[in-house]
C-alpha cells in the first residue's frame, strides 16, 4: 500500500512514481483477475465440458499475480529513471504475456468443438476474451521501451488500458450479473434485452477504443483538453466519430439498467439451478437463505466442473451430489 506523500519542498518525483506504480500495477490486476475467474466459471457452465487444464489456469492466474509486482516500471519508461531499469522492467512485462496467453489459449481451445450455449452471460464472456486479447496485443508494443518512447502518454496507451482493463472487466461484470442475477434476486433477467445490450456494447466499445490506437500513433497526446496545433486538427473528425459511438454505447448501458431494475421486480421467477451448473452456489435455494445452506453443512464430493458426464440429472453432476459418475478425466 503506497504511503501518502506529504506536501513538502524537495522530495523526489521519481520516488512517487515508483511507490505509486508498485501499488498501481497490481491494482489493475486486482481489477482483471476476478474477471478471469468469472469468465472461466461462466464458460464452463455454458460449454458443458471441462477446460483443457484447470490446474494450468489456476497456476497461470497465480503467475500473473506474482509477476505483476515486477513489471510496474513499465509505466515509467520515460520518467527519467535509469534506462537500464527500463530494460529490467521490459523483460518481465513481456514475460507476463505468457500466463495471460496461456489463459486465453486454454479458453479458446476448450471452446473449440464445444457446443456453447448462447445466452447473455456467455456472450459477454466471449466478449471479455475478445477485449482482453485486443487490449493485450497493444500492450505488447507498449512493453518495449523503444516503442514506448513514441507512444507514452498518447491515446495509444489510453486505448490499450481501456480495452484490456476497463471494457474487459466491465464485460466480466456484465457476464457475472447475467449469470448470477437469478441466484441473487430469484428472478431471471430479460434475455433479448441482454443480447441487445451485448451487441451494442461490443460493437460500440470497439468503435470507441480502436480508433484510440490510431490517434495515439498519429501523435495525439493524452490528457489534453483541446487541440490548437495544426497537426492535430485533422484528427477532430476521428474524435467526433468516437464521441458519437460513446454516446450510443452509453445509452446501451441504460438498457442494462432498465433490465436490472425491471427484472428485479417483475422478472420470471428463477429455479434453483437455471443454468444446470455444478458449483455450490447452485445447490442451495434461490435466493439463498440467511445462513446459505439452511442449517446443513454441505459435503463436497466432486471437482467443481464435472460436465459432460452421465448422471441422473443430466450431463453434469453437482459438487455436492454423492452420486458416483464416470468423470470426463481424472479428478484433480
Amino acid at each position, binding site marked *: 500500500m503506497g504511503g501518502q506523500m506529504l506536501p513538502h519542498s524537495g522530495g523526489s518525483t521519481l520516488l512517487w512514481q515508483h511507490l505509486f506504480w508498485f501499488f498501481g500495477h497490481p491494482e489493475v490486476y*486486482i481489477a482483471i483477475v476476478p474477471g478471469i475467474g468469472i469468465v472461466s466459471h461462466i464458460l464452463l457452465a455454458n460449454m458443458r465440458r471441462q477446460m483443457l487444464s484447470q490446474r494450468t489456469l489456476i497456476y497461470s*492466474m497465480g503467475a500473473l499475480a506474482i509477476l505483476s509486482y515486477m513489471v510496474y516500471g513499465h509505466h515509467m519508461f520515460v520518467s527519467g529513471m535509469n534506462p537500464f531499469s527500463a530494460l529490467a522492467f521490459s523483460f518481465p512485462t513481456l514475460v507476463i504475456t505468457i500466463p495471460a496467453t496461456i489463459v486465453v489459449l486454454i479458453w479458446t481451445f476448450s471452446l473449440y468443438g464445444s457446443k456453447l450455449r448462447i445466452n447473455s452471460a456467455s456472450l459477454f464472456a466471449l466478449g471479455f476474451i475478445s477485449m482482453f486479447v485486443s487490449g493485450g496485443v497493444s500492450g505488447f508494443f507498449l512493453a518495449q521501451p523503444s516503442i514506448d518512447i513514441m507512444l507514452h502518454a498518447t491515446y495509444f496507451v489510453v486505448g490499450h488500458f481501456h480495452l484490456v482493463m476497463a471494457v474487459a472487466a466491465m464485460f466480466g461484470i456484465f457476464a457475472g450479473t447475467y449469470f448470477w442475477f437469478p441466484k441473487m434476486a430469484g428472478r431471471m433477467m430479460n434475455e433479448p434485452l441482454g443480447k441487445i445490450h451485448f451487441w451494442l456494447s461490443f460493437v460500440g466499445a470497439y468503435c470507441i477504443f480502436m480508433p484510440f490506437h490510431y490517434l495515439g500513433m498519429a501523435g495525439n497526446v493524452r490528457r489534453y483538453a483541446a487541440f490548437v496545433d495544426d497537426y492535430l486538427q485533422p484528427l477532430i473528425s476521428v474524435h*467526433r466519430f468516437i464521441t458519437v459511438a460513446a454516446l450510443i454505447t452509453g445509452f446501451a448501458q441504460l438498457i442494462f439498467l432498465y433490465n436490472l431494475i425491471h427484472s428485479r421486480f417483475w422478472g420470471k421467477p428463477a429455479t434453483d439451478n437455471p443454468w444446470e451448473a455444478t458449483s455450490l452456489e447452485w445447490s442451495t435455494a434461490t435466493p439463498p437463505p440467511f445462513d446459505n445452506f439452511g442449517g446443513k453443512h454441505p459435503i*463436497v464430493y466432486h471437482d467443481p466442473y464435472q460436465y459432460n458426464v452421465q448422471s441422473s440429472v443430466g450431463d453434469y453432476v453437482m459438487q455436492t451430489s454423492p452420486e458416483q459418475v464416470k468423470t470426463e478425466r481424472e479428478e484433480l
Partner: protein
Amino acid sequence: MHDMSVNTAHHHSPPTTFISKHVFSLDHKVIGKQYFALALVAAYVGMFLSWLMRIHLAWGDAPIPGLQLLSANGAPGGVMTPEYYLQLMTMHGTIMVFFVLTTAPFAAFGNFFLPIQVGAEDMPFPHFNMMSFWVTFVAFIVLMASFFVPDGPTLGGWTQYAPLNSVGPVAGPGQGLGVILWMASIGLFCVGQLLGSLNFITTTLDLRVKGMSLMRLPLTAWAWFITSCHVRS
C-alpha cells in the same frame, strides 16, 4: 449434527429490524448486494463524466447546457475550461478504477458468492465485512464531495503525480482541498478493501467444508483469493 473439526463462522441469529436487515447487515449476501449497488452508481457517474469529456473533445467550443450548474468556475456559460476537463478526467479515472473495477467483480460478487462456493455460512468476521462496505461507501461520498467544494476536484489524474499533487492551489483549481479529499477518499477506500480482503483470505483458507480441497474450489473462488492477496500487499 455439527462436526467440531470444521470451522464455522460466527453464529449470529437472523436480523429482524429493517436497519439490521438492509442497512447495517452482517450478512455477506446483503453486503455483496450493497457493494453491487455502489458499483452501479459509481459506474454511471463515471460514464456520465466520460460523456462530458468526449463531448468536449469533439466540440470543444460548444457550450454544454447545464454544466455551469455543476461548476460555475469550471464551465462558465457551459463551456468547459481545460482545467475542468482535467478535473473531470481525474474523477472519471479514480471513480472507475477504484469504485467500479475493484468493487464490482471483487467485492460485490466475491462477498456474495465466495462463502457459498466454499460452503460456509458466512464470512468469519462479519462485523469487519460490514465495516469494509461502509468505509468504502464513505470513501465514495468523500470523493463525490470534492465536486462541490469551491475549487472543484483535483486535476492531477488518477495517478496524482508529485509534485503537481503536493504544491497546493498554485498548481491549479482543485489542488488544494480537492487533493486532500482525494487522498482521504483513497485512504479510506484502501482501509475498506483491506478489511474485505482479510475476510476473503480467511474464508478461503479456513472455512471450506468437508471435501472442499483447494483444488476443488471453483475458479472464481481462486480468482478472489488471488486478488485478495494482491490487495493485502
